[in-house]
């Protein structure tokens, strides 16, 4: 695998994420449109669907907030990871920021000086080793409005799923229209404070059609989605039946004294893309159909 080839393919992946919604999200928005009865909520969903179509056709950013960009790299244990991977990811973000363009969203946290899109911890790159011979590379551009509605709580162990349910429903109600609902709610459970926060965000990479492999957790995902939609916040908070498109929960084991829980919501413009790099250096896009 050559550096130039990788940069070009990552740019293609990121452009896809920024311009075309994954099919499962589009389908969920269309279902929501059919389900809503008020003219105000239908008007919002109609704008989302129309906007997404034009963005994809014209290769334009779906939302002006092109987000902070996170990469998730799963490296097969049979793969020798090139040392320049992270620098290629940074280069791809930097070049696409000019070419598309992406909005310069990165600032110094305290001085608030605008830095473009590449800086300390940006883009975020998470690398983990998994069994296999491929590299799986996922990208998640995420806007500030939805990220601002995130939270972390260290629950008492006895609070269990019921405590997590209460926390999540309160958080969704309290966020109202601010995270651009209908959202996808990512919940990270376990690990420690840092792991739970990372799991909550990573949960947003999962398709709306897939449920957690643990039947109890999968049931919780379905029930929480139904309860959240009973809140009546609706698209953009104007009222309605669709407040969330789905709930994705990821779980790790944790310390005997702790129950860390983090919540991270993705806006309706739930941008994500994923590709596989085979051991032969071939690229295959998983989240989007590519001609």
């Amino acid at each position, binding site marked *: 695998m050559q550096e130039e080839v990788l940069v070009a393919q990552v740019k293609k992946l990121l452009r896809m994420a920024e311009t075309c919604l994954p099919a499962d999200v589009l389908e969920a928005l269309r279902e929501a449109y059919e389900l809503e009865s008020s003219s105000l909520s239908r008007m919002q969903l109609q704008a989302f669907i129309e906007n997404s179509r034009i963005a994809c056709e014209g290769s334009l950013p779906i939302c002006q907030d092109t987000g902070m960009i996170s990469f998730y790299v799963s490296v097969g244990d049979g793969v020798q990871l090139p040392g320049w991977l992270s620098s290629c990811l940074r280069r791809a973000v930097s070049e696409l920021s000019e070419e598309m363009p992406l909005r310069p969203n990165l600032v110094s946290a305290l001085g608030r000086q605008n830095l473009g899109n590449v800086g300390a911890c940006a883009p975020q790159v998470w690398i983990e080793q998994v069994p296999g011979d491929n590299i799986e590379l996922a990208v998640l551009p995420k806007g500030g409005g939805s990220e601002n509605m995130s939270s972390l709580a260290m629950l008492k162990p006895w609070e*269990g799923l019921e*405590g997590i*349910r209460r926390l999540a429903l309160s958080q969704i109600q309290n966020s*109202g229209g601010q995270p651009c609902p209908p959202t996808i709610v990512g919940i990270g459970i376990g690990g420690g404070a840092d792991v739970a926060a990372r799991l909550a965000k990573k949960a947003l990479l999962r398709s709306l059609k897939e449920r957690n492999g643990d039947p109890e957790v999968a049931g919780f995902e379905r029930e929480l989605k139904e309860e959240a939609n009973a809140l*009546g916040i609706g698209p953009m908070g104007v009222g309605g039946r669709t407040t969330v498109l789905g709930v994705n929960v990821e779980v790790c084991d944790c310390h005997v004294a702790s129950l860390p829980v983090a919540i991270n919501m993705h806006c309706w413009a739930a941008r994500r893309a994923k590709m596989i790099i085979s051991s032969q250096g071939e690229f295959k896009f998983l989240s989007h159909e590519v001609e």
Partner: protein
Amino acid sequence: MAEVKLRTPISHEESKALRVGDVVSFSGEFLLCRDKAHARLLEFACQQRPIPVRMEGIPIYHAGPVVRELDRSLRIIAAGPTTSLRMEEYEAHILRHYKPRIVVGKGGMGKRTLEALVDTGGAYAVFPGGAAILAARSIKEVMGVYWMDLGVPDALWHTRVEEFGPCVVTMDSTGGSLHERINSESLGRLRDLLSRQLPSSGVGASACQNLPLKGFDLGRN
């Protein structure tokens, strides 16, 4: 609920007549203005310094655009609204001092802004969040950009729009607020939902109602 087409500058009578639920489109001048530009507008007001654009009757739009340079002119290619509540610190002062009369954004604003809308006969409207390409298609021209030292998203973008909409009025000069209504209704539903517990709740919750679970309430969040 009425469908209204407004042309800027918007008069006091026009903004005062708007009601929650009205669907509005705007044509004419439009000011894209968010966090840092709000802070600077307020700073200039305090120092009694002139600002580079006229604001009376010109809607403020909470948005930070994606901008492309084409043939030495600037084109806005994506410009959906940003979360308005971040501007709550500033907006009441700005409505009173500069009299834009209309604020457009997403997610709604708080009590201080609502009071200022009542006092000044203004209205707040939402544009569908994230619909950045639809918004940009109505922005026909960048008439000027000021305070670029604040960065592209935070600069003051003076634009010309045609039929910018659909904007839905959610806060009006009579003190009506769709956001307050949805918030109190959904809070009521949340309380109903939380009055029940999952059947699978741990530590025999149903048998031990006076034990630890009772200590959990909405306040912790």
